[in-house]
């Protein structure tokens, strides 16, 4: 009999990166135009303790349930959680020195150099990290200065000083410039943290992992195949997955859901026993909406790199894990049309109807989980709320609920957005950790994870994409 696939464990991480915000895609371009913006951004960034105590971040790492966030009044950046813990039920937050340390231990090509003081801080902040800690070494400041003078690249900052340097790897290759390599190294390093924590919490040995599926959006490769490379094995190598190979699945924000369905299928088909789906942080999206945040006098809140990892394997005899109902996988086919009605019909209604279920048979929907406090100042609205109201309207059209029940449908089957605007991270999957907890304690029977991706951003099609799956106790 073929095994029933399940999401057995989830792990999430947030790496505080205030000094990398200046290298986010939007800040780089805007600071280039108006250098006076840089000190203004620096002034509006939050210190570590405020980032730890920020309620949406506490939800992301599992210390606070999404429903509890709904009852904390906005603005959340002012209504912080007292004595908040950076270690969470299924995730953690790490300091910027720890992030630099992870980047250093992930750097196989001597791209990044940091000074001795930073190396020491990084080592201290990563004292409980199991892999390659000996690689977190520093150089003296004079050597760093020489390196920066002789190479093209980017300065790395800590506590207001130049504390490191990342160099361009090939002068004539746009795919290997320091800024691209920074994006890729950051993604690798943060994914390594999430995967390492995942294996530790799951109690699965690294050498038991058969396959790795990275679903991050970074373009790894060189000039002949920009974006054609893979991060999966690079991450697995650091954490000791010696028996695994892997590949990357690209589909903008919807890639993690594609990857989890693929992982489930590999397990169900008996090709692999344990598959890890992973995604690192998105450097390019740091500070993306800083302009709106400055104009509105709110903190620049896109200050953390988010990462995640999921262990997919055979459902245990004890019922542990979220059973993946692959027979209920939904997709938005090319011919479906791109109206919201067509999208939700394909993604949500069709798979349910196929199995004789109704929309109200799903206890919780996880959609685009972007934190509204980040998006609203720029006029982008509350994305999860819009998604949930659209889903509810769909239920009205299907005569499953009355029009007056839209609000209660949203309150009961939705949740507030709590994920940082980190590209592929927010689409549905930030809820999986909470779903695992809720199903373990018997508070949840069935949830649907829905992701959409804006394919049109790449200028190759006007299409949107979407995929979904259902998990059950």
């Amino acid at each position, binding site marked *: 009999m073929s095994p029933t696939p399940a999401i057995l464990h989830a792990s999430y991480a947030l790496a505080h990166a205030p000094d990398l915000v200046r290298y986010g895609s939007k800040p780089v371009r805007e600071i280039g135009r108006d250098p006076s913006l840089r000190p203004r951004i620096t002034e509006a960034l939050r210190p570590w303790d405020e980032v730890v105590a920020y309620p949406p971040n506490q939800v992301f790492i599992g210390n606070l349930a999404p429903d509890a966030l709904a009852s904390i009044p906005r603005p959340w950046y002012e209504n912080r959680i007292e004595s908040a813990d950076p270690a969470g039920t299924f995730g953690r937050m790490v300091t910027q020195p720890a992030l630099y340390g992870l980047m250093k231990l992930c750097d196989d090509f001597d791209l990044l150099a940091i000074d001795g003081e930073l190396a020491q801080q990084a080592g201290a902040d990563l004292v409980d990290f199991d892999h390659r800690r000996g690689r977190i070494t520093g150089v003296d400041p004079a050597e760093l200065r020489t390196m920066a003078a002789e190479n093209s690249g980017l300065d790395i900052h800590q506590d207001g000083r130049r504390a490191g340097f990342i160099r361009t790897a090939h002068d004539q290759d746009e795919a290997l410039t320091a800024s691209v390599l920074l994006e890729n190294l950051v993604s690798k390093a943060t994914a390594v943290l999430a995967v390492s924590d995942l294996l530790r919490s799951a109690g699965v040995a690294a050498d038991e992992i058969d396959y790795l599926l990275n679903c991050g959006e970074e373009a790894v490769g060189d000039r002949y195949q920009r974006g054609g490379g893979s991060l999966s094995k690079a991450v697995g190598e650091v954490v000791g997955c010696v028996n695994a190979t892997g590949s990357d699945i690209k589909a903008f924000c919807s890639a993690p859901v594609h990857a989890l369905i693929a992982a489930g299928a590999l397990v169900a088909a008996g090709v692999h026993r344990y598959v890890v789906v992973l995604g690192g942080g998105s450097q390019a999206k740091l500070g993306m909406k800083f*302009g709106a945040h400055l104009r509105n006098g709110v903190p620049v809140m896109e200050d953390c790199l988010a990462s995640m990892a999921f262990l997919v394997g055979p459902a245990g005899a004890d019922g542990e894990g979220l059973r993946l109902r692959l027979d209920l996988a939904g997709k938005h086919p090319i011919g479906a*049309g791109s109206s*919201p009605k067509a999208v939700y019909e394909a993604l949500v209604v069709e798979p349910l109807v196929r199995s004789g279920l109704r929309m109200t048979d799903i206890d919780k929907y996880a959609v685009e989980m972007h934190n509204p406090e980040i998006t609203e100042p*720029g006029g982008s*609205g509350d994305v999860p709320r819009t998604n949930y109201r659209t889903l509810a309207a769909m239920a009205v059209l299907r005569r499953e609920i009355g029009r007056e029940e839209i609000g209660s449908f949203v309150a009961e089957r939705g949740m507030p957005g709590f994920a940082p605007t980190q590209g592929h991270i927010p689409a549905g999957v930030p809820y999986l950790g909470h779903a695992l907890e809720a199903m373990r304690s018997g508070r949840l029977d069935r949830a649907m994870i829905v992701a959409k991706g804006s394919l049109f951003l790449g200028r190759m099609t006007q299409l949107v994409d979407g995929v979904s799956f259902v998990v059950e106790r």
Partner: protein
Amino acid sequence: MDLEDQANVNRLAETSGTDDMVVLLGQPDANSAGLFAETVTRGDPTWAGPLAGVPLGLPVFHVLEPEIKEQMDGDLYDEHVGLMELSADVDEIIKWVAVCRD
């Protein structure tokens, strides 16, 4: 509004005039609809894009406005806008776009 799109709108207005031009919006909430409407009437309120300080004064309408809806094919409208008509705060969206237009 995306800076590249601001540039496109600005170029269209400059090269072929604004006489018979209308902007049609499809945002699902009042906040963003208002922001887009303002950008193509009084100029980019964020002062970040090519339309900063450029009051194009274009007539701007939201697809949810009744006088727009009645001109469109009914079946197409149900398919593409029906869901948003149910889920969005229609009055609020129309109000914010109208404020910019007037």
